[in-house]
């Protein structure tokens, strides 16, 4: 899985190249290895991956951002569908989904730009979760595009460490009620 290491700098066409596939999987031993092994063996690239149990402990939801230049999306979905522990697959186009991503970033600051970083964070809906003289850690949960912009802004201040969770998503609600993805 050539994941983030081989990923190009983010640009406007990322939303075309990167598709989010949401999987509902059985919570059984080795499920993640099966998914990762499939991507590796078939030469599909994962851009990001997020996994956690759902409200029903028998199942987990896996959100994979797939680089569709490495393989046609339909082939990725069809191969994933063959995994016995994969119960359901939803392809989520950004226009049809509510996406979110969580970022933690530690930025080196002097007294002059500390206020600026804090202002940027709160403007984007984030917050300072840790602070010492010379550095702050900011947490931001937002639409991935907002997180991208915030990361770019922080880059100018000097990023010490950064961790993003990868995108997660649910389908947009329709007027006739909840959709079950």
């Amino acid at each position, binding site marked *: 899985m050539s994941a983030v290491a081989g990923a190009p700098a983010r640009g406007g066409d990322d939303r075309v190249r990167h598709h989010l596939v949401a999987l509902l*999987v059985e919570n059984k031993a*080795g499920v993640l290895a099966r998914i990762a092994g499939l991507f590796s*063996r078939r030469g599909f690239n994962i851009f990001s991956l997020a996994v956690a149990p759902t409200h029903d402990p028998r199942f987990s939801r896996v959100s994979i951002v797939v680089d569709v230049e490495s393989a046609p999306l339909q082939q990725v979905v069809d191969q994933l569908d*063959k995994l016995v*522990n*994969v119960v359901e697959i939803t392809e989520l186009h950004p226009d049809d989904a509510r996406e979110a991503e969580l970022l933690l970033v530690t930025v080196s600051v002097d007294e002059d730009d500390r206020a600026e970083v804090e202002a940027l964070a709160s403007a984007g809906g984030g917050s300072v979760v840790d602070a010492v003289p010379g550095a702050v850690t900011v947490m931001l949960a937002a639409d991935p595009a907002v997180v991208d912009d915030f990361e770019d802004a922080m880059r100018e201040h000097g990023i010490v460490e950064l961790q993003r969770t990868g995108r997660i998503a649910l389908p947009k609600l329709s007027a006739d009620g909840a959709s079950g993805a």
Partner: protein
Amino acid sequence: MELTGAQALIKSLETQGVEVVFGLPGGAILPVYDPIIDSSIRHILVRHEQGAGHAAEGYAQVTGRPGVAMVTSGPGATNIVTPLADAYMDSIPLVVVSGQVATSAIGTDAFQEVDTTGITLGVTKHNWLVTDPAEIPQVVAEAFHIATTGRPGPVLIDFPKDVANARTTFEPPPPLDLPGYKPPTTPDPAAIEEAARLIAAAERPVIYAGGGIVKSGAAEALRALADVSGAPVTTTLMGRGGFPESDPRWLGMPGMHGSYAAVTAMQRSDLLIALGVRFDDRVTGKVSAFAPGAKVIHVEVDRAEIGKVRRADVAVNADCRLAVEALVDALRRLASERPGSFGAGRLAPWTALLRGWKERFPFTYDREDERSGSITSGLAPLKPQYVVEELRRSTPDDAILVSGVGQHQMWAAQFWRFEHPRTWVNSGGLGTMGFAVPAALGAKVGRPEKMVWAVDGDGCFQMTAQELVTASAERIPIKVAILNNAYLGMVRQWQHMFYEERYSEVYLSSDLPDYVRWAEAMGCVGLRVSSPEEVVPAIEKANEIDDRPVVIDFRTDSMEQVYPMVPAGSSNDDIVVHPSQAGLAR
């Protein structure tokens, strides 16, 4: 009822109707071998775990039932990885049980511990590590269900020693709970209607039938489809036997060493009716140049194969037999609505063209030897193709033919004629040298009433010949024809054609080992044939022996090449025919 995990496993296998297990015991699987003594299941003790896997494949290929193999942990498990990969490529239902170290020792690098489920992840349809003895009946039921339904394939159950020794109760398994496993069955009627319309409108259709026809039991439906559509039929290496080859509509096999008629028919076709196939690279050649003018109807049970290599104009994701039957019904309705609008009569110009190709470009070899003028002279080198032709003439119509991988496999496929499904067993997708001897053993166990011949190469034979000891010990009278050309012949052919005859590490020697003495040491009858006139008498002698295996060492012409050939990566338009046909009008 209280019993051990091992007893629960054997009982579960019995419940699934298992009659034969191919295996070899060892430390971690020891507890499971104890209840085998009291079981109705016949255990066949192989001499190497790879043999167990290929024997189970041969058994599955000829019976249509899942093959079962049992091995110990560590090296036992790794030795059966090749058969698992082979079965995964060729969609063969296989259930492999591997021993594993006790659950408390997993992850500690214990003696004979490997991560079997991890290693086999990519070469099984699914696998399980059993951690709770109460799960055994359910896991076994799931394993057989997954191995045999949808696109068949191998599965593996990893079975730790403490689970085997634990006391448990045997409850019949609850209904299967596989929410993520829903193989398709019946076809979408709209897709069938559209496919029927395309077939009725086609002027140059070709039915491209593969292993899915044999596996789904669709041979009869395929014949009906050929009848109602009038379309000619090509059957792939895995599809051989799915259509009777005496039928004049049969074009031969497609692919790298396929018939000129089949390869060229697909290139000129306006509609490929692809049934249970996966557009393998050995069939398509250069994909962008494959059947450039053809629309494609793709009937396939595995959704991921549709569009993987070639876009389908009509996709039918369903069981192959049910889909072909529905297609036949739809075409019959069309035929009654618009009599004479399609079918054999309207396709006459196309089929006449193909018949001409088939007559002008048959599989051939130099039957006339320049020194003697006759193939039957003792001076002429023995041609491997001649051996296959004579073997076919000297064996019953429904004899089972098994082959290894290489030139001999292609000659067997070219010069044998199959009339019945499940009479041809070989390693197609993985190309596993050494497949033939153990697979033939398994085939004979599955169909003891049929004559089973293996056509093997000398290189292949040396890889797995030890299973002839198994065959002798278990009185499994298979017959092996070694086409001994003293070379890794297919590699030699590529070095001849593409590496300017620079032969690197392909010479094996024709008399080291001495195959006759080796066969005799393994309890077989060993025969040697060096000249054409000895061929038929030796085959007849072998056919009369039914109490032990027979091995015939046929000393064949080392220089012989497999023709036709589409060089790897080339367009199928660039098919190289036999030199004697090179000047003929295409």
